[in-house]
């Protein structure tokens, strides 16, 4: 696939590197000449030294045939405009924006950019996962839906431990997609009983996150 990456900071550089290693085609736009040079020395001729928030450089980078444009500069307004230009001018089927202020996830969605990655939120999730009371972590929203993936761990004393999935009272529209038990995936149906140590993946409407938490943890 062909990916255009806007912004050659640490995130953009490592993303480009990883995509190239996975045999994808990549073009990275970086406006700073020296930074662009440093990246080109390491990754080869996959760098265009130009600002990605101008339509003509998006065209020059071949955005019209890109499978996705990923805006990962450190500046939220810049990432927003890059994604909107890519959508409107180049008809890019998939645009992904990095947001630095987690509040901007909502703003970007309202302005037509559905896929956002907030490093602040990812780190918050990791911190929350470390909390002893945690055991419940929304992993990611599913694109183009009002659904999200939640991971939860059943510990000793968790109210749902030992109960059958069908009896948990999960919100309507929420479903347990799988259980990882002792490192293996267990097939689940309504009669499957949750065990201590199970890690479960729940698919749930975003608005019912609290209901899922309640059904599992009381």
């Amino acid at each position, binding site marked *: 696939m062909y990916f255009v990456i806007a912004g050659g900071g640490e995130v953009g550089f490592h993303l480009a590197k990883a995509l190239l290693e996975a045999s994808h085609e990549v073009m990275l736009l970086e406006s700073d000449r020296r930074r662009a040079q440093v990246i080109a020395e390491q990754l080869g001729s996959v760098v265009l030294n130009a600002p990605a*928030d*101008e*339509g*003509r450089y998006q065209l020059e980078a071949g955005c019209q045939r890109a499978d996705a444009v990923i805006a990962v500069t450190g*500046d*939220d*307004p*810049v990432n*927003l*405009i890059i994604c*909107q*230009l890519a959508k*409107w*001018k180049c008809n890019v089927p998939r645009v992904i924006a990095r947001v630095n*202020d987690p*509040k*901007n996830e*909502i*703003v970007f969605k*309202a*302005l037509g950019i559905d896929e956002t990655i907030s490093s602040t939120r990812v780190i918050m999730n990791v911190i929350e996962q470390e909390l002893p009371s945690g055991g419940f972590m929304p992993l990611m929203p599913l694109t183009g839906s009002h659904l999200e993936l939640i991971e939860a761990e059943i510990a000793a004393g968790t109210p749902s431990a030992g109960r059958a999935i069908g009896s948990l009272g999960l919100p309507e529209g929420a479903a347990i997609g799988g259980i990882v038990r002792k490192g293996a995936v267990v097939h689940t149906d309504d009669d499957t009983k949750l065990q201590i140590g199970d890690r479960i993946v729940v698919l749930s409407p975003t608005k019912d996150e609290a209901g899922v938490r309640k059904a599992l943890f009381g």
Partner: protein
Amino acid sequence: MNIVIVGCGRVGAFLAGQLAKAGHAVTIVDLDRGSFEHLPRGFGGTTLLGNGTDMDVLRAAGIEKADAVFTLTQGDNRNLMAAQIARQIFGVKRVIAKVNDPIRAALYREHDISTVSRTTILGTLLEAMLMGDAEVGKVLMEKSKQAEATMAGELG
């Protein structure tokens, strides 16, 4: 009218001063406290320190009751983001963004954001002045001369 202005550079400060003097309720937002020094002495509006692309800051500036919003920072992208928040999230009727890149200015106009490009406005005016085409900037030149005279008078 209730007016919110994002960006207190020379243009923002000038506009805020003019509108406040005309009796409008003006709130001007900027990230940098020092930028409020651009405002005319005796400015009758409100200043608010904060990021104009932050919804909470815009709420504090009274955007929910605003009749008009101008986004006039030095960054085209910031202006376009703040303008879209005002127009599409808060539903402000009149939103005008300063966008120096003429191409972006034209594109966002197609997407319901009024834009003004200093590049093309000033450029067109300068060309007209050179060619002696009086019609093109007549009113504009008269109004800005008046404003400049008033400002100079107030200072000296």
